[in-house]
């Protein structure tokens, strides 16, 4: 539906920005421009389909799975996993597996993906990291691509009986299986990206008192236990574990956790009776009545129109 520019007193779209500012289409004189505050860098998917870092206070026009951008507004989140792009680092435990660093181009700009290659030993083959946390809700995400074998993700507590598992066919982009066992529950989804990449997303709910979350990424060839060929594997980049029940944009890390601060996008000085409508990327809307200060909601916002 077209925007009624004649009647609208404020129109903001995902088209014009600079550090600290998201420009309003209307009013034209700049009095409706939104201020943008985010005291850390962040990432977005650009129009070329690559994840790139955006500077402090720069609003994010995000093109994830769309040809037209949305304004990406997110709360604060922390990637608990270190070395999110470097699985050869000793931070990651490799069992009957080796890592070939920087093997192929990845969806992350200027970052090549590693290849996990199972050693030619019968058994299971995986990369693992255990994270200590008292939280009860986590979301794991990572970018994976077919390298000859599929991927099997497993998240366990202290006991193997309590776990969530997500098997994914990287050749054709379909789920192999999703398992919930014991006291740990969860959900899963994925995002298809260009060049055969998939962002796999698993939300894990653990019972209070569980001290650890063990995250294992297995090569899968009809089973997690098999005898590999020594060359096949899977490609991986951008591992992330957040203490929240939903995924957010990628937060790259090296030798420590990294926090992305919240996006705060505001228009101040609004007067009079008005109805402000936020339209999200999926065309759902949120209506705010008579705001004097408008603070953009979290989500992926396509347009804001105040009448």
């Amino acid at each position: 539906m077209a925007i009624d520019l004649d009647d609208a007193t404020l129109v903001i779209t995902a088209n014009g920005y600079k550090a600290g500012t998201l420009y309003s289409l209307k009013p034209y004189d700049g009095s409706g421009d939104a201020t943008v505050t985010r005291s850390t860098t962040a990432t977005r998917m650009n129009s070329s389909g690559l994840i790139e870092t955006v500077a402090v206070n720069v609003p994010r026009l995000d093109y994830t799975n769309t040809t037209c951008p949305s304004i990406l507004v997110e709360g604060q989140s922390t990637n608990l996993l270190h070395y999110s792009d470097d699985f050869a680092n000793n931070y990651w435990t490799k069992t009957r597996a080796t890592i070939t660093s920087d093997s192929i181009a990845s969806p992350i700009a200027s970052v090549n993906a590693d290849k996990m290659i199972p050693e030619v030993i019968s058994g299971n083959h995986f990369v693992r990291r255990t994270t200590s946390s008292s939280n009860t809700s986590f979301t794991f995400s990572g970018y994976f691509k077919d390298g000859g074998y599929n991927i099997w993700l497993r998240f366990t507590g202290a006991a193997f009986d309590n776990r969530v598992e997500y098997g994914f066919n990287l050749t054709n982009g379909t789920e192999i299986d999703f398992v919930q066992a014991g006291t740990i529950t969860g959900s899963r989804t994925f995002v298809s990206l260009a060049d055969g990449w998939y962002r796999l997303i698993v939300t894990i709910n653990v019972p209070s008192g569980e001290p650890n979350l063990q995250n294992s990424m297995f090569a899968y060839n009809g089973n997690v236990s098999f005898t590999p060929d020594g060359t096949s594997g899977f490609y991986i980049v951008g591992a992330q574990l957040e203490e929240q029940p939903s995924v957010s944009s990628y937060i790259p890390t090296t030798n420590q956790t990294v926090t992305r601060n919240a996006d705060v996008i505001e228009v101040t000085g609004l007067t009079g009776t008005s109805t402000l409508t936020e339209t999200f990327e999926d065309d759902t809307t949120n209506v705010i009545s008579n705001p004097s200060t408008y603070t953009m909601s979290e989500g992926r916002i396509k347009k804001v129109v105040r009448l």
Partner: protein
Amino acid sequence: MAIKIFGDGGLVTVDDGTETQISTFSYYESDDSTISIVNNSKQAYAWNQLFSDIQKEDGTQAGATLQLTLDYLADIQLVSYNGLASDMFEGRVTSDGGTFESKTCLTTLL
């Protein structure tokens, strides 16, 4: 005097014998039969016309009634201003040192 008012490639063209193109355009009804044309800054143009004198590009009357004439002008206005908005916005953003992206998407939204 009859004048023609029509949309022309994103501009509103007012043909009063001189074929003036105006980039911002609005109008208001000043009484029961007269329509005054102003730009979007509410600065009046010279034309104050009886609705019956306002014609389309082909010379036919814009509307048989005042309301139908206003409806016609509203359509022209919408096409015109929205068509120009992305260009005006791009100019403002870039001249302020900002980054402008996805003009095609903005045009689609409008």
